[in-house]
């Protein structure tokens, strides 16, 4: 809370004292770049997106009243740029994605029900791991194992908080197709997190 107030007052002071957008490059450039790179997987495209973000930020700076921290404000602009990027892209789903999408995780089920030994285990509360750097490394690793298109769709939905309708329109895919992709992405990510994080942790509570 203290931190937040400091941030806000810093921003307000910055606005009255004449802001220096070049400082954004040093303060937030790497963070924005990392996020962009995670999303578009191409250093040049990521750099362009960061630059577009900062330029847009300069243009709309008057509208920014320091309600949020500078970083989350810039991050919000970057998210919009990323959505636009995918709108312009409109790629086709490639073959490896289709293979992934057809994988029904059959070993997890017997007939139509969970195989009791391989079914989801109990996860501990998010508060216990969300501030651990190792957790985020593992989550990133899991995201990068998704086929590109499936990962894009999942991240547009869950990180950029685009609506289902917006994603369908932007990527020119049917709602059914989108649902299948999201279902498979969630299934694979859940699986990957459980295998690499939750089951590795001896303190995990199980009720079995």
């Amino acid at each position, binding site marked *: 809370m203290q931190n937040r107030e400091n941030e806000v007052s810093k921003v307000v002071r910055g606005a009255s004292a004449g802001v220096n*957008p*070049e400082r*954004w*490059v*040093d303060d937030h*450039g*790497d*963070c924005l*770049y*990392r*996020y962009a*790179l*995670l999303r578009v997987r191409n250093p040049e495209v990521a*750099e362009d997106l*960061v*630059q577009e973000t*900062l*330029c847009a930020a*300069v243009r709309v700076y008057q509208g920014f009243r320091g309600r949020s921290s500078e970083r*989350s404000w810039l*991050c919000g602009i970057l*998210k919009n740029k990323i959505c636009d990027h995918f709108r312009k892209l409109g790629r086709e789903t490639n073959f490896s994605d289709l293979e992934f999408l057809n994988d*029904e995780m059959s070993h997890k*089920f*017997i*007939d*139509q*029900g*969970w*195989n*009791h*030994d391989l*079914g*989801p*285990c*109990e*996860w501990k509360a*998010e508060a216990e791991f*969300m501030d651990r*750097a190792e957790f*985020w*490394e593992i*989550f*990133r690793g899991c995201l990068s194992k998704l086929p590109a298109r499936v990962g894009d769709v*999942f*991240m547009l939905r*869950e*990180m950029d*908080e685009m609506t*289902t309708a917006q994603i369908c329109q932007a990527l020119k895919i049917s709602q059914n197709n989108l*649902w299948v992709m*999201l*279902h498979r992405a*969630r*299934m694979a*990510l*859940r699986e990957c*997190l459980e295998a690499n994080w939750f089951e590795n942790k001896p303190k995990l509570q199980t*009720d*079995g």
Partner: protein
Amino acid sequence: MGNAEKPSSSSAENPSFLAGRNWLERLLVSFIATRTPKCREVVKLLSQSMEVKLPVTTRIKIRFHYLICVWCYRYGKQLHALRKIASSLPEHVDDCSQETLPDSSKERMKQVLRETWRE
């Protein structure tokens, strides 16, 4: 045939609320199992429920299914956890990547920003 309706050898370790531990449970399990979707279908519906509000009858069926299947119940909770995790990633991006913008790019960006700022 849902796995849950078969009192298999591992039913002793089945932590579901109803797991066929006695005749009454067995009766209830088979009653619910024949009237609710199978797990494979339930996990699809749970993912859909993150996008749209499912019809009330479907939601009730899923609730009943949870009684006989702790795994689907966990799966549903974990989809919400996954959403929370994914939406928090932007704040933790410094924890999971070490890439940095090359200095030359930073300089170029500052140059562009100077010009844009003056306009």
